[in-house]
């Protein structure tokens, strides 16, 4: 087969994969169309924005920075969304009699089909339009856009091929589950950085821009700028840099592809026995209470660390529980009561306990034969949560207090936190028994299809009831704050809130236990859908 024929075939393959993917479900079609519309809107907006910036002193810096961010996105993308692109995995083509060189050209062409390249194309076009002045610059711009796009795509391919073993292994899939988190935290950081820049001015970025305009793919944009300013030699050198990058990345990609197709898959080789290693957790189990409680706690804690879904949920809760009160305090807009956020966010982890087990819940169900067993099971899980939550909520409250320098209020906010935590754990235990739902282990969804309503009832209803349940403590806090001389007694809210929270938790567990024991087959059926 000739290179042209092969390229056409691979591109057609990519198009059919796209089409068939859309044919699978209306939801997917809607999602795809929505993302196309969003991409076009965003692209149009930034096009307008960049053109509006035309002639501004910092426009080149922005355009260059944008190109580098795009490239970074392309490089990171395959690591976190390995399943996003069917043609991405060249190991599927191993059995076909193809040579690497033509295959690479074909795959590169196929990679240019899709939303990602379209988006990139729009952004790059906007960037060069903002920078270009004069006919020669526009001519350079055409070459620059093509080169920059090719650098992005080739970069993604080279990274993916170099890491394909990782991406198809369990560790890679675990990594992918955490990607949502990286995106969320990254957005926060970018947001924070943008706010800083907004106050400090764009001029601060100009030195960075001066360096970046020599690094592909931004060097292609830099070339347009250089040509606009009449420095044709510099522009040519910058374009050549981008072209060299495409060639270099292509070679790298080709090398790892060849290696991939000829070397045996390491995942089928017997791993060397690491030998008996006693983990530190043996010490942990000695510290935990004996019997079912300690056993359940140990398993729950291990899962927080080892199960990617559980870990992602925990890290999100821990991060948001800290970020909301502390960032608000840092910006001077905060109230100490925001510190209760930590308790609230972490309390959510008690919800859908059995869904977190997935269908492995049968192992638990086989050992629960009475409400007493169910009580021990739920108590173990609640205690495991408390082991992390109590110190963390306390820490967040103390840190927020220190930032706001409002020490007299510390006891009442702590008391409120503990009451809320108890209420969340109590309602969480109850709704775990009443509204269990599956958490799919693959992909990013946290609810199995058809169970979204259940999840909403469980979490939203639970949070509202938790708020209602802790209302006596909230009322007492308000009362002591508005009554003259109430401040003198506000410290009482700490022991009262803690005791009230503990009481709620005990009651919640007592109510949830018989329900759990009675509904074991129904719970198992509900959590086995993922």
């Amino acid at each position, binding site marked *: 087969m000739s290179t042209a024929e092969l390229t056409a075939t691979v591109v057609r393959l990519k198009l059919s994969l796209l089409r068939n993917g859309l044919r699978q479900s209306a939801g997917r079609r809607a999602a795809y169309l929505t993302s196309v519309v969003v991409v076009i809107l965003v692209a149009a907006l930034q096009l307008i924005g960049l053109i509006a910036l035309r002639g501004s002193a910092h426009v080149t810096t922005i355009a260059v920075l944008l190109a580098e961010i795009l490239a970074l996105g392309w490089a990171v993308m395959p690591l976190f969304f390995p399943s996003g692109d069917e043609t991405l995995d060249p190991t599927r083509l191993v059995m076909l009699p193809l040579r690497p060189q033509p295959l690479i050209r074909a795959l590169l062409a196929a990679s240019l089909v899709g939303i990602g390249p379209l988006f990139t194309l729009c952004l790059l076009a906007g960037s060069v339009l903002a920078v270009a002045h004069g006919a020669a610059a526009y001519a350079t711009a055409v070459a620059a856009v093509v080169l920059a796009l090719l650098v992005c795509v080739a970069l993604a391919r080279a990274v993916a091929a170099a890491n394909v073993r990782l991406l198809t292994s369990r560790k890679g899939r675990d990594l992918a589950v955490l990607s949502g988190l990286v995106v969320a935290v990254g957005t926060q950081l970018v947001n924070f950085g943008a706010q800083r820049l907004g106050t400090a001015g764009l001029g601060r970025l100009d030195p960075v821009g001066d360096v970046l305009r020599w690094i592909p793919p931004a060097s292609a944009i830099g070339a347009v700028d250089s040509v606009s300013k009449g420095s044709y030699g510099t522009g040519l050198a910058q374009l050549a840099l981008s072209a060299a990058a495409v060639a270099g990345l292509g070679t790298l990609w080709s090398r790892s592809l060849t290696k991939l197709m000829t070397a045996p898959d390491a995942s089928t080789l017997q791993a060397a026995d690491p030998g008996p290693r006693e983990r530190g957790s043996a010490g942990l189990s000695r510290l935990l209470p004996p019997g079912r409680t300690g056993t359940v706690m140990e398993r729950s804690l291990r899962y927080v660390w080892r199960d990617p879904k559980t870990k992602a949920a925990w890290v999100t809760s821990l991060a948001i529980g800290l970020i909301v009160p502390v960032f608000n305090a840092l910006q001077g807009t905060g109230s100490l009561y925001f510190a209760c956020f930590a308790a609230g966010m972490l309390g959510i982890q008690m919800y859908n306990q059995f869904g977190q087990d997935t269908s492995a819940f049968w192992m638990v169900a086989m050992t629960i034969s009475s409400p007493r067993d169910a009580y021990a099971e739920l108590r173990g899980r609640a205690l495991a949560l408390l082991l992390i939550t109590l110190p963390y909520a306390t820490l967040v409250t103390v840190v927020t207090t220190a930032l706001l320098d409002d020490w007299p209020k510390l006891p009442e906010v702590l008391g409120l936190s503990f009451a809320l935590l108890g209420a969340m754990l109590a309602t969480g235990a109850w709704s775990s028994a009443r509204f269990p739902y599956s958490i799919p282990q693959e992909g990013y969804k946290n609810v199995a299809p058809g169970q979204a309503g259940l999840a909403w009832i469980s979490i939203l209803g639970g949070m509202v009831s938790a708020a209602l349940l802790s209302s006596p403590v909230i009322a007492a806090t308000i009362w002591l704050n508005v009554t003259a001389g109430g401040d003198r007694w506000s410290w009482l809210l700490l022991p009262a809130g803690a005791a009230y929270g503990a009481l709620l938790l005990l009651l919640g567990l007592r109510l949830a236990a018989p329900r759990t024991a009675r509904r074991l087959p129904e719970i*198992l059926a509900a959590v086995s859908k993922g």
Partner: protein
Amino acid sequence: MTEGAGAGATAVRVQGLWKRYGEQVAVAGIDLELPAGRFIGLVGPNGAGKTTTLSMVTGLLRPDQGTVEIAGHDVWHDPVAVKARIGVLPEGLRLFERLSGRELLAYTGRLRGLPGTEVDKRATQLLDVLDLAGAQHKLVVDYSTGMRKKIGMAAALLHNPEVLFLDEPFEGVDPVSAQTIRGVLERYTSSGATVVFSSHVMELVESLCDWVAVMAAGRIRAHGPLAEVRGGAPTLQQAFLELVGARARSAGTDLDWLGGGAR
């Protein structure tokens, strides 16, 4: 072994068991008495209702109708007595895969209420016998199919149950692991315990079991000692095909291009 293991005793008694999923009837009224101390095979084609039946018998799925007794105790009314007496290896359900093999056994044994030192002793022996000692510190998620079946079986055997239910224990298992599992099961039944396992591989059932129940389309078609069910047929496979009414499809002229000669 305690009660129910004597000669002629009944390990499992099923009466009028039904399960429907909407329009579809998965199990259509099963009555069955499984003798204690035997190696019992539940055979049938895919979709016959074997897994549904075993799930209902072990208390993992609530039947629409019918009763199940294990060693004289009702599964749904006396779960304390039943759950202590049975071991289960279900098909299609996960294990706690983010634990290592040894941690999984330690967890299961302690949940069963066994003392910690006893659990560790039994776990070590089971891991040795099942040839998993080398992988005991590996996470179960990284185990192969055969290793998963073996660790699942170890977890089911840990509390020394009277009756062991295994759903497709040999599915996807390599010959070496299969032989290991067989050895353990044979040793276990020879001491008077009962094994009930499902399979669609007749040769396997024929070579392992002394008592079989044949299932098709949610019903029991035949049950009894192996020789009785086999009757005049040369193999269980033949007897089974006759029972479920499947005829060998003629490969006549439809695929006449397949094989040697012209490509």
